[in-house]
């Protein structure tokens, strides 16, 4: 008898816990680099705060008994808020508490899009930030928009859509370098914030990369290639060429 009362597949909850563990490991591995980025334009606490918060979140996730995805998100989000000790708590964690509600029927391509959109909306609202402010929003917005389009308009399989989202986040992180910070501690530097990569956006990219890896693992598929220079729109000529090859049946 499962302790899961929602009727949602238990494996979805386990996959979400696995994702949180992967993120915790990755953030710990990147801790010094994130702190280095933050010390250039901020208060040099991003790496330490995030590593502490995600380690506690992974621990809290592991302790859950057979949870559904929504419960994992809520627990992890609340733990991040309690443990991070900075703006990343409400931004990364608080948004997760709200967005997790979109996964109450399990993790599907559609619910993942709804999750992503709610998450972005909460980050924007809480941080009062928009694209171009040199914040995490600069990575999340292109990632979420690209994911939604890839799923809903281009009809890509979820894993390929997520890979496109990672591409887009990577470009978003690069976009934070040549712009001026308008939110967060970096905004106090004024024009001196230009030329620096935003640590929060960088963390968001790492999180998305880990989500992609864990999603591939959960689906039993290879991790798709991620290439920030690849086109956002699927290459139709290549697809047609592939179809042509298949139709012609010449196996060169």
């Amino acid at each position, binding site marked *: 008898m499962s302790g899961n009362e929602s009727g949602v597949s238990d494996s979805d909850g386990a996959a979400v816990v696995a994702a949180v563990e992967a993120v915790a490991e990755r953030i710990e591995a990147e801790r010094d680099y994130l702190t280095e980025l933050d010390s250039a334009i901020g*208060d040099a*606490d991003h790496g330490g*705060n995030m590593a*502490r918060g995600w380690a506690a979140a992974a621990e809290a996730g592991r302790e859950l008994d057979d949870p559904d995805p929504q419960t994992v998100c809520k627990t992890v989000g609340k733990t991040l*808020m*309690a*443990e*991070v*000790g*900075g*703006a*990343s*708590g*409400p*931004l990364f964690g*608080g948004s997760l508490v709200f967005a997790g509600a979109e996964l109450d029927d399990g993790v599907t391509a559609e619910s993942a899009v709804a999750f992503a959109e709610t998450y972005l909306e909460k980050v924007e609202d*809480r*941080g009062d930030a928009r694209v171009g402010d040199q914040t995490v929003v600069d990575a999340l917005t292109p990632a979420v928009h690209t994911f939604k389009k890839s799923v809903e308009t281009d009809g890509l399989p979820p894993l390929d859509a997520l890979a496109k989202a990672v591409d887009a986040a990577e470009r978003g992180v690069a976009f934070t370098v040549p712009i001026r910070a308008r*939110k*967060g*501690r970096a905004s106090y530097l004024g024009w001196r914030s230009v030329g620096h990569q935003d640590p929060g956006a960088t963390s968001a990219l790492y999180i998305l990369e880990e989500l992609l890896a864990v999603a591939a693992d959960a689906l039993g598929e290879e991790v798709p290639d991620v290439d920030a220079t690849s086109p956002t729109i699927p290459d139709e000529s290549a697809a047609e060429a592939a179809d042509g090859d298949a139709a012609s049946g010449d196996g060169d």
Partner: protein
Amino acid sequence: MVGLVVVSHSERAAEGIVEIAAEMAGDTRIEPVGGDGQGGIGTVPDAIREAVDAADDDEGVVVLVDLGSAVMNADVAIELSDAEAVIADAPVLEGAVNAAVAATDPSATLDSVREQAEAARGMEKL
């Protein structure tokens, strides 16, 4: 009475600001809160919520905040708390002193205290 909470990234700064504001605060409840909970610089929503609850005696709480994450975490704390609380968009020290004075007015309301705190934005020193 309307209560006050002072949120700073530094616990000592919050305590110092409360020390200054309390001189003018009469019987007003005024709670300092700050730090990341590990002895470092930062703010934590749960700690702020506890301070809001401690400052509340059913007439509401005006929250003074310092920088960025203090605002966000105070926002979260207010959502978590049962108390009626508002953030004053004001400089934290001057706003706290103004709010402390305003709160001692027998006819003070949550709005009037917040307004007085926010009036500190326009204070000139020279």
